[in-house]
């Protein structure tokens, strides 16, 4: 069943691929310029954007990874779900509206609104590209293994397929195609996950207590699955992971970019209402699915290999459970949706990476804001192809590596570089270019160095005996370094530039709060 060609899965996936390619063709015909390419012309409604954001967030890693984590350790899976969700109210309350009012295509637009363009754009682009590439590698490697298992394709074929589809969507369809691929996939995933969760709950007369009781009876750890387990070993790790999850979300470039696809600030906050609701609902589903997997997969010889582990590892819990609940058809559907999920998420990442290169580095740093639109479009398409090739090459190189830490590192960097610059440029008048550049760069470097010296890379991957930095999660330290140095180098900044940074704050504040002067679009009401 697993590892051989799965007909329902392949046919349903081909239907999805055909539909999304038709959409890409339609989007390509309607592509007038950079505005359509980066932000879908600002014509996406709050509801559509809410679904698309939720789609970006409901990656294969979070669907399969969190349900797998609940399957293996119960409660600990909930810690991740909650951490991923709590960033959203913060984005809604403090970031969404000013972001829409101040920016056009990338979050660097906001940071450089009053600070000096070139250094801030270079730093933001570094932050964005590092986050995007790490996230991309993790998704591509995960997808190769998943597709290998679900569709029976060789790993390299799977990785090349994902990379090629991603390049097709983004280069031809830009943000319009990327958004619609994401919306369709989000709807399919929510439908599929709801179906599995309902089928599971129906076995227990919709009583969570009955489900928990059955799971405790089956799981090797017994009642231990109902409380905190081994995921978090000490207070420092707990706080550090908590910070990265909560504030990392507010610094993910592919998520922030979606706020420019809606016509105005009002639609931006409507987006968050819908995305938060969908994401919250989705995480409750993954929790039920994880517990359902404990009950129906544990000890079931159809799904447990000879080594006593789940066939294809814990990440396959949701897929196996769909087979228990709905046979080959439901499993085929879930497999196809998982494939679709990977494509949609990597496309959003590629677009965010490409815009950092073409909009921030090429148009604003190299051309000083005077780039020809056609040239900028060409650069963004070339950048997408470059990212596609990079994703394929790195995906194949990292096949045998444990890449799970890369998502954690991406969140830590987002929380230690992108987030501090973004939030302080909006709310702290004393922030200067010097402070932002030094502090932001220090946050980026600290996060990377601490992960390399920590237990995951230094010991598990580089095979050293003891870690130089004892904690798995760097965010507490890297965020402190970033905020500390930003503060220090801003308040002591007496340069001519610092006066300009300071003077422009009030203009920025008025525009952020009222939307006057913002790039507003009209939407059919």
């Amino acid at each position, binding site marked *: 069943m697993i590892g051989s060609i799965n007909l329902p899965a392949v046919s349903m996936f081909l239907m999805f691929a055909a539909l999304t390619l038709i959409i890409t063709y339609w989007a390509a015909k309607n592509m007038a310029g950079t505005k359509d390419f980066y932000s879908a012309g600002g014509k996406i409604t709050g509801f559509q954007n809410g679904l698309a954001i939720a789609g970006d967030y409901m990656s294969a890693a979070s669907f399969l990874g969190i349900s797998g984590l609940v399957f293996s350790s119960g*409660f600990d899976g*909930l*810690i991740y*779900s*909650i*951490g991923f*969700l*709590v960033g*959203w*109210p*913060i984005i*809604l*309350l*403090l970031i969404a509206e000013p972001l829409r009012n101040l920016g056009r295509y990338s979050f660097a637009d906001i940071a450089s609104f009053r600070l000096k363009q070139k250094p801030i754009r270079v730093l933001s682009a570094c932050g964005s590209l590092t986050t995007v590439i790490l996230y991309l590698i993790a998704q591509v490697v995960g997808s190769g293994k998943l597709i290998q298992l679900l569709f029976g394709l060789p790993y390299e074929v799977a990785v090349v397929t994902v990379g090629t589809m991603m390049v097709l969507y983004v280069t031809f369809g830009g943000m319009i195609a990327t958004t619609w691929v994401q919306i369709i996939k989000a709807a399919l995933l929510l439908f599929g996950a709801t179906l599995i969760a309902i089928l599971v709950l129906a076995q227990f007369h919709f009583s*969570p*207590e009955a489900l*928990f*009781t059955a799971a*405790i009876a089956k799981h090797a750890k017994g*009642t*231990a699955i*109902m*409380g*905190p387990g081994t995921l*978090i070993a*000490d*207070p420092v*790790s*707990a*706080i550090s*992971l*908590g910070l990265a999850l*909560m504030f990392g979300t507010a610094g993910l470039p592919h998520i922030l970019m979606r706020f420019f696809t809606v016509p105005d*600030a*009002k639609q931006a*906050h*409507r987006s*968050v*209402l819908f995305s*938060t*609701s969908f994401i*919250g609902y989705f*995480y*409750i589903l993954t*929790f039920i699915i994880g517990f359902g997997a404990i009950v129906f997969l544990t000890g079931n010889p159809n799904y447990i290999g000879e080594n006593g582990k789940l066939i294809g590892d814990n990440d396959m819990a949701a897929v196996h459970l769909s087979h228990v609940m709905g046979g080959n058809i439901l499993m085929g559907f879930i497999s196809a949706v998982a494939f679709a999920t990977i494509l949609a998420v990597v496309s959003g990442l590629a677009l965010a990476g490409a815009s950092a290169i073409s909009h921030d580095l090429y148009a604003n740093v190299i051309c000083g804001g005077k780039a020809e639109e056609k040239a900028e479009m060409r650069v963004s398409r070339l950048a997408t192809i470059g990212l596609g090739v990079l994703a394929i090459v790195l995906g194949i190189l990292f096949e045998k590596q444990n890449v799970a830490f890369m998502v954690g590192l991406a969140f830590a960097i987002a929380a230690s570089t992108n987030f501090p610059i973004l939030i302080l440029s909006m709310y702290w008048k004393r922030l200067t270019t010097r402070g932002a550049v030094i502090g932001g760069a220090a946050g980026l470097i600290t996060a990377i160095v601490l992960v390399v010296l920590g237990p995951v890379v230094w010991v598990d991957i580089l095979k050293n005996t003891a870690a130089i930095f004892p904690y798995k999660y760097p965010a507490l330290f890297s965020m402190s370094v970033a905020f500390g140095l930003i503060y220090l180098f801003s308040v002591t900044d007496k340069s001519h530039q610092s006066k300009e940074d300071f003077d422009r704050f*009030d*203009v920025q*504040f*008025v*525009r952020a*709060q*009222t*939307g*006057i*002067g913002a790039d*507003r679009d009209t939407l059919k009401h």
Partner: protein
Amino acid sequence: MSHIPHTVIQEDADFKALITARRAITWPLAAVVSIAYFAFILAIAFDPKALAIPVADGYVGTNGIWLGIGLILLCLIVTGIYLHKANTVLDELTHKVQDKFAPTHTEDVV
């Protein structure tokens, strides 16, 4: 395109009312979410056993699980409260300021 000096808008009573109203809603709500979340994280760090206790005798669902699900719901409630406030108070004030200073949508702040 006409340019409006930012100082003029900053002195405006409706603008000031908008800023006051928005601050009064956003920062307390952000604090509620952050405090609830870090209380949960600190409980995991310092007193994991308390979270592993069933909510009541005869139940298997623990404090940790129901608090966790409660946190997910809290995020949704906070989002709902803010949206309600935005639709009833903040949007109206924003439109007032926009209509006063930027009636044609082409004005810019300088």
